[in-house]
């Protein structure tokens, strides 16, 4: 599976077509990625791993943070249901009582709160159109510091590491910052693969969760690669020959499953 070399559906391809050059002039190569890579990054969004301690983490006040949890489940979860709501609420309740610690479970809570903030603030252009917009700054900043440390230093990851990384990637999606989104998804993908290889003989539930995450990561990584590499839909695909060898238009297992599901529902 890879992005096909030589496909010509991309936005940049069109921008550099001879006809565009003739009519509208030349545009420099690498236009979009250059803009994003030079873009100002508020310090709260830094990827530099810090030495954060538990006492520096935000205190979760239930009255102030529960609306953010609700916003997360109402607006974000519907498109990417990678958390079990009851399990998460248990984790959140525990940390509102016991406080946060420097670990991935706490980072997951912080990531959900940061996303809830982003979801609620996005609709307010006075905030979201500023280059310095950092919704839920305390949450995201702490989450990033914990996760960067965990990712770089830990070799005993938990399932909450890739989950948190996916959520933080989504957060950068809210901020329309595709390069950071991609980098975090790349990290989530490698950490889930590392975890998955240790879970092959593990009992049911954890393996199941990891398999769902892998599917999601596959999807999200595909989307982000589209955005970053091609700026155009669907250039991510099973590498060349397989589907063609199977016949020109093979029905995939996904298509079949989907058809069965939809038939059952209809």
């Amino acid at each position: 599976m890879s992005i096909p070399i030589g496909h010509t559906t991309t936005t940049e391809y069109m921008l550099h077509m001879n006809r565009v050059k003739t009519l509208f002039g030349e545009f420099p190569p690498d236009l979009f990625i250059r803009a994003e890579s030079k873009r100002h990054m508020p310090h709260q969004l830094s990827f530099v791993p810090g030495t954060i301690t538990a006492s520096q983490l935000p205190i979760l006040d239930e009255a102030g943070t529960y609306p953010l949890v609700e916003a997360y489940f109402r607006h974000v979860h519907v498109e990417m249901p990678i958390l079990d709501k009851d399990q998460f609420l248990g984790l959140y309740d525990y940390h509102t009582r016991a406080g946060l610690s420097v670990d991935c479970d706490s980072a997951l809570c912080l990531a959900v709160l940061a996303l809830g903030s982003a979801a609620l603030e996005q609709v307010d252009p006075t905030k979201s159109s500023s280059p310095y917009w950092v919704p839920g700054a305390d949450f995201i900043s702490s989450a990033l510091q914990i996760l960067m440390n965990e990712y770089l230093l830990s070799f005993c990851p938990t399932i909450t590491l890739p989950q948190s990384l996916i959520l933080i990637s989504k957060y950068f999606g809210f901020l329309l910052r595709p390069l950071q989104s991609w980098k975090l998804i790349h990290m989530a993908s490698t950490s889930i693969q590392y975890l998955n290889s240790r879970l092959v003989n593990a009992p049911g539930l954890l393996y199941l969760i990891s398999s769902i995450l892998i599917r999601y990561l596959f999807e999200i990584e595909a989307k982000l690669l589209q955005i970053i590499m091609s700026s155009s839909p669907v250039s991510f695909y099973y590498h060349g020959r397989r589907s063609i060898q199977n016949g020109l238009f093979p029905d995939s297992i996904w298509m079949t499953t989907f058809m069965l599901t939809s038939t059952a529902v209809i």
Partner: protein
Amino acid sequence: MDDHFYADIDGSDLIAEHHLPRSGIEHVIDLTPFPTFPNHDAQETHVFLAELSVRRLLNRVHHTMYGSDWTRRSLGLQPASSDSPSYDFQSLSTILNVSQELDRQLDNWFDLLPRTIKPNINDPSRYTGPKLNMLHRFHSAKDIITRPFLLCAIDSSPENDVPPMVLKQCEASIANCRAYLDASERRLMGPSSCAEIIIHTYVHNILHTQPELIFRFLRMFSSILLLTLGSVCPALAHLVPDIDTLQKNTIQSIERFAVDGSLMQEIHGIIILLHSKTRVLRRAM
């Protein structure tokens, strides 16, 4: 930006320079069991499965219509080269059947969507959230299926008549670009006359689009660029008489996302440039 594009167009070695590494997750995806969802009737489950299945279809589109030289040869076409367009009128007739078959598969996909996420294609204006997402997906897939015909017509020299078969596909492609822009703009702008509905609809619409927001903007950019090129192409201009309004609407809908220093700001600026130049070019036609 797009390494493949550079390899094709400039013949340069930018692939190596801009190659973004994959994480390797594609190697385990085949070995991973299909997920069992706790609630297979939930809307989010349907959305996820529908996304997966349409992606498979779109992958087939890429294989067969935009794929590698290997794919092109399997269709009896010459490999694409850096100094020639992907297709000429003759090779388009070769891929017409393929395009029609893929189009039929896309219609099947749409027909099979469960009611929970299926919009009415004839009345797209009242949908939000996942249903609007499906509509976007549908139009973006249609676009890819018909785009080679439009690009070829745009790229042909004005002396060449566009064959009726190609013109018919161009009409479909342009209609589809319009539908895509229309749905995108409605989604991004929302109505502006009733405060509570605005906030509700707007919040709802915006939030549902976030994960792919940039993606949508880039798709809008592609669509408006195609429509613009059509509008200044003598053989197609009659299909886009309202290009001025289409460009203005697009500029307006993405304006508030054009944050300083961002990719969106570049896109916004380029569409403004296209807008003024199109006016000049069309006056001279």
